[in-house]
């Protein structure tokens, strides 16, 4: 709230109102805000300049190759998995008409509500040796331990499957739009030149949609590299697990930062790929859209069945399993502690959502009032955190706060002969700051897109009618933007609620959230007890998916 107040103050003193044409405070304010939000990332990058410790050499000799190899395989697997699932689902739902299509269009988005670590816990419970599936097999066929082969879910392959199942919607969403925008005459031309429908897909539709698909896969891979819960639970030695072990197990913060910097190089490549692909995406609004081909008989059953299977595997089966566990074992999880968890999660998420909204308004509005290269760059850099894994941001937040705490402590000892202990590290402030770095872009995007729909002449009109910039914000922009602002709050709220790795590292001692509690219970192999907090996260995670589905339904209506 203080932030919003400062924003209003900054707006009410217009630089042009007195004498100063020329100097404006906006660039300075935006650059300072951006620098603050960039701080953790800068610190991680700067850690490469620090001397490499013996631990680093030790890691280099032993596990770093392992981390690199595993992360590369993970990316390869999830990349292929999300591409096949996402492009397949997008093509089938845009090119063909079959029973259940319109329901599947939105149902295919449901897995977005399922955090990867939760689907991993659920499938482990389902497919483990003692789980219902293997037990049923043994009972039916009279097998015993070791009599049969069953794939091990807690493996690299398992992690790839879990991540692909919940991350394909990124590809699906972008590919779907790309396919829908493609013109009918282009495909008809290919058919008239003697190509079969399959050839049309591979030779015409797919190449045209490639930038969108690449952008979608890049986003899915960023999430893959950011994932900690799944790989940690499956015992897969990916980068995030390595960073966590180095910091938590060995207490080597600098080495953890250096590992994080290495991971950021991967991320940087993905950002560049995603940005360039997006720039190459083309939209042709006015062209005649392709009609969907009506499928019938076994083809339509096959098509529908395949898509239903994806939705089942990615959402319905794990959600049902969670629900059953939660119903059967709710007594184990439902207590005062659970209410405390819900309260902690909700208050943390609400505070972060408000902070992010305030920052977004400051950045977006500052850029609108004072458009320029410096301002634009500052805002874009401030939003960079979305691509950086929560684990990396946490390490980047921990280092400067620890340094500051030590300094203050040393000064206090010197001057007053008392120890202040740790003032900032391990406080909610540190956590909210890390969240703001990670999720600012989510709310910024929402605010910016809303603000961009407000014509600049409306600002001018308000000003000529005697309203200052601050009054214009209050009387014109905020009422018009109400929906966008609410969306911004909601999206950040849900993201914070689902977030695991940064919370795990930065939370105050004995402060638990739904996500952390789920992680702890699952790590203790108390999967059934973990079901209640996990289910709570999934249900809340459905909110943004429902918003998305409604937006898409409106788009469908317009396109017919």
């Amino acid at each position: 709230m203080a932030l919003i107040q400062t924003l209003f103050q900054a707006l009410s003193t217009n630089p042009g109102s007195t004498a100063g044409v020329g100097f404006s405070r906006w660039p300075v304010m935006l650059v300072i805000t951006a620098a603050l939000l960039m701080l953790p990332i800068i610190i991680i990058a700067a850690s490469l300049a620090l001397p490499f410790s013996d631990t680093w050499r030790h890691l280099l000799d032993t596990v770093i190759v392992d981390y690199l190899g595993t992360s590369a395989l993970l990316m390869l697997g999830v990349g292929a998995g999300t591409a096949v699932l996402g492009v397949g689902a997008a093509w089938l739902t845009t090119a063909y008409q079959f029973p259940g299509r319109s329901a599947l269009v939105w149902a295919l988005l449901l897995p977005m509500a399922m955090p990867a670590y939760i689907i991993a816990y659920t499938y482990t419970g389902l497919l483990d040796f003692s789980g219902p599936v293997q037990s049923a097999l043994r009972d039916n066929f009279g097998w015993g331990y070791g009599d049969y082969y069953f794939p091990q879910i807690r493996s690299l392959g398992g992690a790839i499957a879990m991540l692909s199942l919940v991350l394909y919607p990124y590809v699906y969403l972008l590919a779907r739009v790309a396919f829908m925008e493609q013109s009918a005459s282009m495909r008809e031309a290919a058919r008239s030149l003697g190509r079969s429908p399959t050839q049309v897909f591979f030779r015409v539709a797919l190449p045209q949609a490639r930038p969108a698909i690449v952008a979608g896969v890049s986003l899915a891979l960023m999430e893959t590299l950011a994932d900690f819960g799944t790989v940690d639970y499956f015992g897969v030695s990916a980068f995030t697990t390595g960073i966590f072990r180095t910091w938590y197990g060995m207490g080597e913060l600098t080495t953890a930062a250096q590992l994080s910097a290495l991971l950021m190089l991967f991320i940087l490549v993905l950002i560049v790929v995603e940005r360039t692909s997006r720039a190459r995406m083309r939209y042709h609004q006015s062209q005649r859209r392709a009609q969907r081909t009506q499928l019938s008989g076994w083809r339509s059953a096959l098509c529908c069945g395949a898509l239903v299977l994806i939705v089942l595997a990615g959402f319905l089966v794990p959600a049902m399993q969670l629900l059953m566990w939660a119903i059967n074992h709710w007594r184990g999880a439902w207590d005062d502690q659970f209410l405390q968890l819900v309260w902690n999660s909700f208050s943390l998420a609400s505070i972060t959502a408000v902070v992010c909204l305030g920052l977004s308004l400051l950045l977006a509005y500052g850029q609108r009032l004072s458009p320029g290269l410096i301002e634009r760059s500052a805002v874009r850099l401030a939003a960079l955190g979305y691509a950086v894994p929560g684990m990396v941001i946490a390490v980047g937040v921990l280092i400067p706060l620890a340094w500051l705490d030590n300094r203050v402590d040393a000064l206090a000892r010197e001057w007053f002969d008392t120890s202040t202990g740790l003032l900032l590290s391990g406080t909610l402030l540190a956590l909210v700051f890390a969240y703001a770095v990670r999720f600012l872009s989510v709310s910024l995007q929402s605010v910016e897109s809303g603000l961009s729909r407000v014509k600049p002449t409306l600002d001018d009109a308000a000003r000529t009618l005697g309203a200052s910039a601050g009054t214009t914000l209050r009387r014109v922009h905020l009422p018009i933007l109400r929906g966008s602002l609410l969306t911004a709050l909601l999206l950040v709220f849900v993201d914070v609620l689902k977030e695991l790795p940064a919370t795990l590292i930065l939370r105050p001692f004995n402060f638990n959230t739904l996500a952390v509690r789920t992680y702890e219970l699952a790590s203790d192999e108390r999967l059934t007890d973990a079901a209640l907090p996990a289910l709570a996260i999934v249900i809340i995670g459905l909110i943004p998916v429902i918003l998305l589905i409604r937006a898409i339904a409106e788009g469908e209506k317009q396109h017919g």
Partner: protein
Amino acid sequence: MGKSLRIDKASVCYGDVTAVQGASLRLEAGEIGCLLGPSGCGKTSLLRAISGFQSISEGTIEVGETLVSSPALQVAPEQRRIGMVFQDFALFPHLSVSRNIAFGLQALNANDRQTTVERLLELVSMRDWASAMPHELSGGQQQRVALARALAPSPDILLLDEPFSSLDTSLREQLALEVTQLLKESNVTAVLVTHDQQEALTMADTVAVMNDGNVEQVASPYELYHQPRTRFVAGFIGQGTLLRVSTDSTGGAKTPVTELASALGQLPSSRELEVLLRPDDVIVDATSNCKLVVSSVDFRGAHSLVSLQLPDGQTISCNAPGHVQVSPGYALPVRVEIKHKVTFDAAEGAK
């Protein structure tokens, strides 16, 4: 009651680019002025400088006796008491018609605000639409609400930025007349920006023709049409031809068409000149001995614009009554009557 507007040698720069170069314009209280010129001529930049959205690098802008803009001073738009009607109307989409109009009346108490809103709704004949939302209105209605909203706080100056350009052509002429009448009734000083000369000539008391950042001429519509000071103004306002003519030592035009030579009368001697010939200077007259060959006909109903070829290859145009039926190749008898003689030196710029 409006106030006078004095713009004195104002320049507007965007970085290295000069959009307006030393523009001057004076309007008395209650006058309607117009900035007219092709797109990119700097008229919108000058308008934004008057409204206070754009700083000026040279010169001054004064409203009444108050300095509002100079290189060292830029009074904020909200403190200038300058109202504005925008090209896209810029009605607040979340407010009803009456609340749009009331937006600038924050300083008044609820009663006075209500009275003012009702007076303006009446003025623009939008009383029945008071509680309608902007998106429910037609273009013409939105235009009237925008005008009412800008007039509500009784501004010292009212600016209108291409106010009719987003409306149907059929609607424009009628609205231009209506708006002129409204402005005169409200007795407000107004500045209109347009690229449409018809609008400018219909509405304005004083027109400033701008080209390439410069004000070429400030004059009344009548004067602009009949006494353009530069070639650009001559070409931009109305139709017409600049005819190349050389004169002999006595100041007579050397042309094979005697009718033309006698109409031009006495000109500066021994010069290469360009003479502005308007279509209404050339009149169809069956009794005339001067016959010119028709090269093309542009039939417009009430009249036709007929191009006539002179023996030396130059063409002039003639405003023929619509019932005169001619086709290319026909020799049309015409009389030339030049009431306002406008000549330019062919070698230099304006005379």
